Each structure stands twice: as C-alpha cells, then as structure tokens.
C-alpha cells in the first residue's frame, strides 16, 4: 500500500504567530461594516473614559459655572442645574459603566465597569443554570425553568426595586440587580442551545468515553454555544447600560454626586423646560453606546453565521 511520504527537502509550514492568530480572529469584525461602526462607537466611549481617569476639562463635581448654560466656548456641552461642566461629567460617567467598580470598603475601586460586571454575572449564573437544565433535563429542567420563568414574570423594575430595597444602593448592588434580572434570559438561551447541541455526535462520543456531566456541559457544550452567547452578551451590555440609566433615573441607582449617565438624565429632567442640553447629552451618550454595542453584536453574529455556513 502506498503511503504518502513527506517530500524531501520541503520546508515545514510555519505555525502562525500569536499576533497573527489574534489578528485573524479580530479581522472577522472588520469584514462586517456594521460591526466596525459599532466597535468605533464603543471604542470612542472607552477611550473617553480612559482619558477621564487622568484628565477632564474641569472637576466633574465642582459647581464652578453659571447654572443651565447652553453649549459655549468654555463649556463645550454646556452646564447642568448645579453649574457643573457637562462634558467633564459625561466623560467621568463612562468610567462607572465601562471601566471601574467602586467597592464599599474604604473607597476601593475594581477594574471593569458596573454594566460589564453585571453582564458577566448574568452570563455565569445563566449559563450554569441553562446548561444544567438543557443537558440534564428531567426535574432539573423543570425546577430550574419554572423558577426562572417565575423571575421573568416579574417586571424588571420590580426586581430592581426588590434587590435595592433589600440591600441598599451601591455599585455591587447594581451589579447584583443586573445579574438577577439578566440571568433568566441567558439561562433560556443556553438551555435551548444545550438542547440542540446535546444531540450531536461529539456529545455522544464524550458520553461514551465516560466523561462526567460537568465535563460534557462545560467543555463540550458551552464552547460550542459561545457564538450566540457572545452576541447575546454584547446586547446585554446595552441592556445593562439602560438598566443603570433606569435606576439612576428612578433615583435608586449609583449614589450622587459621582456622575452616571442615568442620574444625569434624571437630575436634568427636572429642568428640561429651561435647559434641554443637560438631558440631551447623557441621553445621546447612552443611546450611542447601546447602539454601538448592538451594531457590534449584530455584525459579529452576521459574520459568525457566515462562517458556520
């Protein structure tokens, strides 16, 4: 039987470098115009937030100017009802959403913003519950999904209020509130993916090898569900930003005076008839970041689906 032999003197093909691999993965984004636009929008806010860590035009909480000024050469976006520079507050408002979490102990700060931690929490809890429900089925499925359905039946605002009323205000509580309200949706998604994936041959093969259910769920199923899960997570960051905005708007979000965009809208809303700019800018900020994340997620999904085909 003829066996193929390597050609003498042939140069073995060089494995791609780590950077090349990373670029290849990232290049999927640039193949989608929608994803690229989304990423630019998100990066704009991330960069602005990073800059605000070291510099803002004026101290964000200092009442240094005349109240309710429209945009002008000194205050590019105008001032709010307490005479604070809106641009400075908008820049700092990015931090708490995307870049940092304030811990209640001695002014400690943890990297990565409240919205992202909230989504990470939702994904971790939701994926765990969804995988167990979908893969194990039976009473696991019944009990988990009934419980999650009951949670979904609550209006989200009520759930926020329950969590915050029970635990008080603060970054960690907002993260928990986002986790509690987001996890059921993630669990439903992961369960449906697990129900599909568990019928595949490679799952049968793993089971035949005698792998434990935990191995099958987290090593075989979860990585194969990552595409939709990543896209869903991107969308959820948008929802989380909305949630923080809503909580701030209700006055139960992150405590003042450190700005968060929802709070800025809420405070400025009282003066909307005399100063519309103070409402417009944080609203535009929330909208643009959420749209950016949605576009990014949509484009990514498009490209991932194309690859699957």
């Amino acid at each position, binding site marked *: 039987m003829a066996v193929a032999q390597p050609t003498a003197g042939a140069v073995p093909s060089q494995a791609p470098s780590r950077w090349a691999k990373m670029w290849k993965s990232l290049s999927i984004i640039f193949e989608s115009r929608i994803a690229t636009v989304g990423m630019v929008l998100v990066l704009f806010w991330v960069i602005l937030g990073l800059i605000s860590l070291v510099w803002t035009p004026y101290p964000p909480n200092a009442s240094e100017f005349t*109240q309710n000024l429209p945009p002008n050469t000194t205050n590019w976006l105008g001032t709010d009802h307490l005479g604070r520079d809106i641009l400075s507050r908008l820049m700092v408002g990015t931090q708490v959403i995307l870049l940092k979490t304030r811990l209640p102990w001695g002014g400690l700060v943890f990297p990565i913003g409240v919205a992202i931690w909230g989504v990470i929490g939702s994904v971790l809890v939701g994926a765990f519950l969804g995988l167990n429900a979908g893969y194990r089925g039976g009473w696991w499925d019944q009990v988990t999904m009934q419980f999650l359905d009951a949670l979904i039946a609550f209006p989200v605002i009520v759930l926020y209020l329950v969590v915050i009323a029970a635990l008080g205000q603060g970054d960690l509580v907002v993260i928990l509130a986002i986790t509690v309200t987001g996890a059921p949706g993630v669990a439903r998604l992961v369960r449906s993916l697990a129900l599909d994936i568990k019928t595949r041959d490679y799952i049968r093969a793993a089971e035949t090898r005698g792998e434990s259910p935990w191995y099958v769920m987290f090593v075989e199923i979860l990585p194969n569900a990552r595409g939709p899960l990543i896209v869903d997570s991107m969308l959820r960051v948008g929802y989380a930003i909305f949630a923080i905005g809503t909580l701030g708007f209700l006055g139960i979000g992150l405590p003042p005076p450190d700005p968060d965009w929802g709070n800025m809208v809420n405070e400025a809303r009282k003066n909307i*008839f005399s100063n519309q700019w103070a409402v417009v800018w944080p609203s535009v900020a929330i909208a643009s970041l959420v749209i950016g994340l949605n576009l990014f997620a949509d484009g990514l999904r498009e490209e991932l689906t194309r690859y699957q085909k």
Partner: protein
Amino acid sequence: MKKPQISEKYMEKIHPAIPDAYQKLKEGRVSRRDFMRFATLLGLSAGAASIAAQCGAPAQPAAPPAEGGEEAAPATEEAAAASGGAIKRGGTWTSSMQLQLLDHPARLSWVEGANIVRQFGEYLTETGPDNITRPYLLDRWEASDDVMTWDLFLREGILFNNGDELTADDVIFTFSEWLNPDVGSSMLGLLSYLSGIQDVEKVDDYHIRLNLQTPNIGVPEHLFHYPAIVLHRNFEGDIIQQPVGTGAFLLEEYAEGERAVFKRREDYWRMGEDGSPLPYLDELIYVSTDKDAGVAALQSGQVNSLYDPRPSDFQALKDVPGLTVRPVSTAQCLVLRMRVDVEPWTDVRVRNALKMCQDREKIMQLAYFGEGDLSIDAHVAPVHPAYCPKDIPAYDPEGAKALLAEAGYPDGLTVTLATKNDQQEPELAQALKELAAAGGFDIQLDITEPSGYWDRWTEVDLGITSWTHRPLDTMVLPLAYIQEAIGAWNETRWTDEEFETLLREAEGTLDVEARRDLMCQIEDIMQERGPIGNSFWKKIWNITSSEFQNVQAHPTAYDLMYEVWKEDA
C-alpha cells in the same frame, strides 16, 4: 402745635413689612382699619399705629363697606382697580393639580385636597398671603390675659349651601370631629391644649368659648390649618358625597385622578367690590396631571395655573408671555439636622463646624436658583411676626477645620448625609458636600426616594428634612425641639432647658414685641448650640395666566379664588 409723626425708618425697625403697608395706606390701597390691624399684629403699638394711620391716610376715603354690614373683600391693587368699574364677572379658571381621594376634611393630609374643599367650605379664620391671621367666619376673637380662654364670636347670617344657617352648633360639631381620636384628624395633635370636647363651650348661638389646658397664642392660626374646614352639624363623613359648606362655589363633579368642577354659588355671604355676592368667576376646573404635564399645559394655554410650581417650573415659566408670576416668601425650609444623641454630633463643636460650611448664598443659588431668603441656623423665619433679625453667618471653612481639630478630628471627618429626592434636597446635599470638603468634612450621600427617607427621617444621624410653612413662630419650635417631642417629631433629640423655658414663655405672650425679645434669645441659643443648619427659606410662586386679576400667592400654596376675576370674561 406740631403734628406727631412716625417715621418709616422706625416702622421698618419694628417690622420690615410695615412700611409696605404704610405705602399702600398712603396710596389708598388699604383701609386705615386694615393698616392698623396689620401694623399692630406686626408689633407696632396701637398708639403709634393710630398716628401713622392718620398721617398716611389718603385724602379720599377708601371704598365704604358694602350694604348690610357685610365686609367688603380686602383691598388689593387689582381690587382698587375694581372700584373704578374694572371688575368683570364670569369666566372659567382651569388649574393643573393632582386630585386625590377625599373623604373627611378633618383627615386632609395634603394641601391639594384642601384646595378642593376650600372652594365650597370655609374656615373660622384666615391667614392671608401676608402671613397675618384675621377672623373669617368669626366676627372676632378675644383671648384672656393668661391666653387660657379664647372666646370665638361667629358672624351672624352666614348660610350653608343647603340653606341652613351657620351657628355655634356647627362649630361645636366640627370641634368634636377634630377631637375624636376615631376620626384620625391631625387637628387632634395641633389642639393638644384642649383635653376634649368638654373644653369647647357653647355660650350662645354665635359665641363659643375654648378653655385651654395650657396657654397658647396660636389658636387663630390653628383654626386655619388646612383640615380645619367648618362642617355642617349633620355631616356624615364623606365630603364628596355630602359637599355642604359655607363657601362661594358649589362642587359639581369630583373624579379622583381626573378632574373637579365647581360652579358659582349665587347666595354667598361676602360681597364683591361691585356690591354683588362673590365670587366673580363662574366656574373653576381642576385637572389632575403630574407637574411636567402641568408645565406643558400652562405653556400651551390649556390650563390657567399650576399648583405649587417647583423651582424648575418657575425657571421654565417665568418668561412665558401671558403668564404672571407672583412670588411669596414662606417659612418653608430644608433643614440640615444633626442627631445630638449620636457621635460625633453630640459635640456642639462638630455641629457648629458643619454649620460653618454653609455658603448660604451659593447653596440657595444652586438648590433654589437664588429664589429665597437667606437664613440663620434657627427655625424662625423672617415672615414670622416675632422674628428677630440677625446677621447671616458667613461661610468659614477654615473656622470649621479649626473647630473640628479642637473637637478631636484634626484629619477631618467622614459622615453620611441622608435625604430624599423629591424637592431640592439632592441639590442642597451635593452643594453642601462640595462646600464642606474645604472644612474637613467628607460627606457621603445617601439619597433615597421620599418614602425611603420618611420611613427613617427621625432616625438618621445626619439628614436634610423639608419642613412646611407655619404662620407663627411658636408653631414649629414645640414640634421639633423640646423634650416632649422626642419620639414624635424631634428628629434631632436636642433639648435645652433655657430654650424650652423661653419657648413656653413665648407661647403665652400675645404681644409681638415682647415675643420678639424672647425670639431673639431663642434664635441665639439655636445658633450657638442648636442641632440644625438652615441656609435659606423658600419662596414659592403663583403662576397664573395674566388675564386673571386679584390673584394672591399664598405661602402654603392655597388657592384663594373667591375674589379672582377674569379680564374680558
């Protein structure tokens, strides 16, 4: 012989409002009688007031009272125009205000409800926009020298809208409702000097005597507390089902959360400037909207007025053509209060250090767009008759730092400031946080929705509490700053023997000037060792379409509509 004279400077020294009244007297806008009553209530002696009245009275006498001995409506600038025939009758006035569930007037908890009931029901007295209390359904009152006995004399000939005459029986019945714990009226606490209905005595059909258990000068003001509507003797407990009152309008329709409609009553007892019965307007309509919708409706002319505009509403509406803004000073305030039974506020130096961190002008500007009156750190307002003027304390962060160091906090102090987010509290809290940082205070803010704060307002260590207007200086102090009030409204737990003795004395002192002397000492004590900071007193505004005349801005946002008239009705 030289004619005796009273200078305006002297009048201003007695009370800043007296020269204004004197000016109105000179212009013929108030009668000599009204001027004398006003001036004496503000502390001018009767002799001095009489001399001033003679000097200031215009050559032409004021309009005589209407026929039948009924008192004409109090004169105002617009009413003066009316005597020239400017008043027009007819027209509809529409206002935006939340309409709540109403049943027993004695149980009214909100001014909105009182603004409904007051259109067809009335009070024994009336505290006017000038903060002076006058007889209303009463013809007069008389107090004994020890202020333990009050004789109330009813006007005769006043009819309810069901045709019955108002008599002492109705007043006794109303008092019995207030004093009945089962009714649940806030009047019960206010009239704590009456041990029960046995202290309310009918002398004859138009004469009621109150036998107080403790002296109190606030009886006339208490009779105008907003739940104090005089009820018909057969009232059964639901004013919407049984809208019987002596007022100038008739309730046509009341739908909670929707609208209320009132029509003019033809046989009301008070006469207008034109000699016919009040009111001038044919119809009042309240539509129930939230504030933002109300602002938009007023801007677009869908309504003619807005109940109790917020500062932001004032900012939005003040320059709108066709609207007239009438500001009025009040005794409403946002009190920065410290619990003196909890560290570190037990130390008066720490309390005073925080008080020194108030840049009052800046706080008033940021929290209230500068639309108020600066205050000292005492709960006595310039609009109170016996207010004793004091210098406004300066912002002194260095002094605050030094005091903190002296109190054992050389590196400053971190404290948590709790409040609610429905009025201007968040703005005040944020302004104070920034200002107090220079004085060594690191203030953490704990701002919740209103119910979250009201659930714990007496318990938090450091907080900002909103206090409403009360017309008399001696009305609020016993509520919040005496031993007896601990467990009730004494949110600071502060008591002071000297303060309490002076307050008790003031409560029994009718003479305004003598009471002012006491208030001077009371204010000093509160400033030196008291538990509150108070940056400013709020102004409030009546904002109404300019076509409506004779509109009055009341410090408690009461809608006084009987004498309002509409141009080109």
